[in-house]
């Protein structure tokens, strides 16, 4: 019994000492989103570094408000939603966005293949808002599409199509994307347009 107690004391001491040492709370972002938040396809966590701060902030707000990631079938969104809510409740949302902005962004690996010629045609519908080179347009609140996790862009297009994203009335930009995504006929069309986006610099 005494030995057990001693062991427990050791464990508690370890826990106490290390909880007291406040590390950087945003290191948790890198746990899922990878080194320099360059994304981790293994757990479906997209690249965040290089993404426009205003876009990240808006998505965190949407997650926190339940306007995104609240539907039962959106497993990845469900993992993000409570994190965003805590950041918001603890007044750390802006600091989180700033932290992501401080990271060194690397070019993500392409993971998807498609017909880039076909994708180029389909991309014409995207270019008006997201720019001919996928560079984004802050005035229109349209994020850049080049140098993002390609599998993530594909997932989001599918989510828009199926209503897992953008169906909430508070997400007006999402509603716009829903109507555009609806014009992509099938998974092949999505793969083609993503393959073309992968060629943009």
């Amino acid at each position, binding site marked *: 019994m005494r030995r057990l107690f001693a062991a*427990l004391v050791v464990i508690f001491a*370890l826990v106490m000492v290390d909880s007291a040492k406040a590390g950087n709370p945003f290191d948790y972002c890198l*746990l899922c989103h990878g080194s320099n938040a360059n994304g981790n396809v293994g757990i479906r966590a997209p690249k965040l570094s290089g993404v426009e701060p205003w876009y990240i902030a808006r998505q965190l707000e949407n997650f926190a408000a339940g306007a995104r990631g609240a539907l039962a079938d959106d*497993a990845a969104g469900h*993992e993000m*939603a409570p994190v965003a809510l*805590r950041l918001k409740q603890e007044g750390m949302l802006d600091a989180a966005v700033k932290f992501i902005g401080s990271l060194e962004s690397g070019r993500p690996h392409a993971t998807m293949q498609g017909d880039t010629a076909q994708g180029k045609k389909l991309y014409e519908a995207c270019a008006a808002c997201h720019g001919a080179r996928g560079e984004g347009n802050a005035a229109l609140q349209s994020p850049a599409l080049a140098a993002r996790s390609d599998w993530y862009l594909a997932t989001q297009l599918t989510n828009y199509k199926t209503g897992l994203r953008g169906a909430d009335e508070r997400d007006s930009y999402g509603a716009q994307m829903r109507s555009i995504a609806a014009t992509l006929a099938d998974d092949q069309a999505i793969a083609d347009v993503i393959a073309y986006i992968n060629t943009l610099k």
Partner: protein
Amino acid sequence: MKRTLSRRDFLNWAGAVGGSTAVYRAAMGIGLMPVAARATQPLLTASGKSKKVLILGAGISGLTSAYELSKHGYEVQVLEASFRAGGRNMTVRHGSRIDETGYPQACNFDDDPDLYFNCGPARIPGHHVNLLGYCKELEVELEPFVNDNRNAWVQDDAMFGGKPIRAREYLNDTRGFVAELMAKTIRKDTLTGPMTADDWDRLREYLRYFGELDPQFKYIGTSRSGLAMHDYAAPEVLKAPLSPSELLKSKFMLIMSFGETDDQAAMMMEPVGGMDQVVAGFMRKVGHLVQLESQVQRIQVLPRGVEVTYRRSGEYLTTRADYVLNCIPMHLLAGIEHNFPAEYSSGFTAIPRGKLFKIGFQMKERFWEREGIYGGISWTLQDIQQIWYPAHGIHRKKGVVLGAYTFSPEAGEKFARLPPAERFKLAIAQGAKIHPDYAKHVETGVSVAWHQMNHMLGCAAQWEEPLFKQWFKTLQAPVGSHYLIGDQVSYHPGWQEGAIASAHHALADIDARERAGGTQVVHS
């Protein structure tokens, strides 16, 4: 809402990943393997003097490696991303912190040595000789763990209108009916294979004992299923056998032999005071080598040695070593910057991550003991799947019950999506189908969704046969001086014994290299 259960699920549930077990059994059959389990503990023969090994992750495989290497003179440094050591070997008790992404929790159990909950591994079978060997060496006190209890309940909405029945009734009445059916239908003239007509009588006699049939080979009930009452001043009254067609409606038949499987059969053990006493035992030896809250960001395999960059308190730090033993879960490693060849690193995302989920409830009264249940598991085909009763602290006032342990990824995700309070509500509603007064006994709970736990984000790697064939050897082999370890690179994922085996495998390889001349010293 009924979930169907496949044979595949069952095999996974039973902790027996089909292929490897099948191979093992076949090997036993042709006499390739020693029948008694033998420790794989490596005898490191080369001196580790002036060699540095960096270990990424202080789970069981990392701690095993640190312990063995430091015993043999290697310089050892362990980087652990979490605030605690142990990996999935995690016990919570009064004041523990549950570091879940999005839903961090505190454990509010009373401060009492019997009130703890094993969130990860919770039982040790007698043939896990490596783990048991370390328990002995590290003076981790063990006690019996009750895994299988015939007095516990079986509940399925599909049978008997959802009313729970005792496990002994399900098991023995089913057996009785099957034995009767076989005894009546098996014909002397159709016996084939190793059986001959001469065996007919002996086979029928076997069936009589197997199912406890009457002289006419009819099943009329058995005391194995329990007596109608236990008034020993009055004559015994057998319970009437349950309806076979009701019994067959339940898919419980897929798990009724859970307690017979290689890793789940009696006698099993647990450390006194919680499974993390194993971690505490290792930490007493190598705790000074473990650096917590150090999250790896970059791994570069060099022509000689390995360079690793990690973050600690928001700063980047870089270190080099002759060897790296890495038990970071592969699905997390996939997001870490590295220079591994693609044919190796593509494997990191090829093996799906497990999504097991557990709930622990502190009960204000050990009500199950009034039902004759002392330890063991009640099974239900609802989402919660199991209720475990503690075999320690018997007849004390309170106890910690396992209120949910899901094996299917769908059930795990369903619970994980909910905030903890909602998880508890769901688990209590389902538990009430087994114990009607369940809710009123619950004082406080903890929940652990392994695929949302920080620094793990998954449970055991979900290896299956085609994946083993395609990836296992590649991932088990070193890249330069970098070795993947952990239960994730063992043929026994989800068990500490598998984690230890992976560590021993890597250590034996390092030892062979050192004996052959070793690598150059590269650490800075």
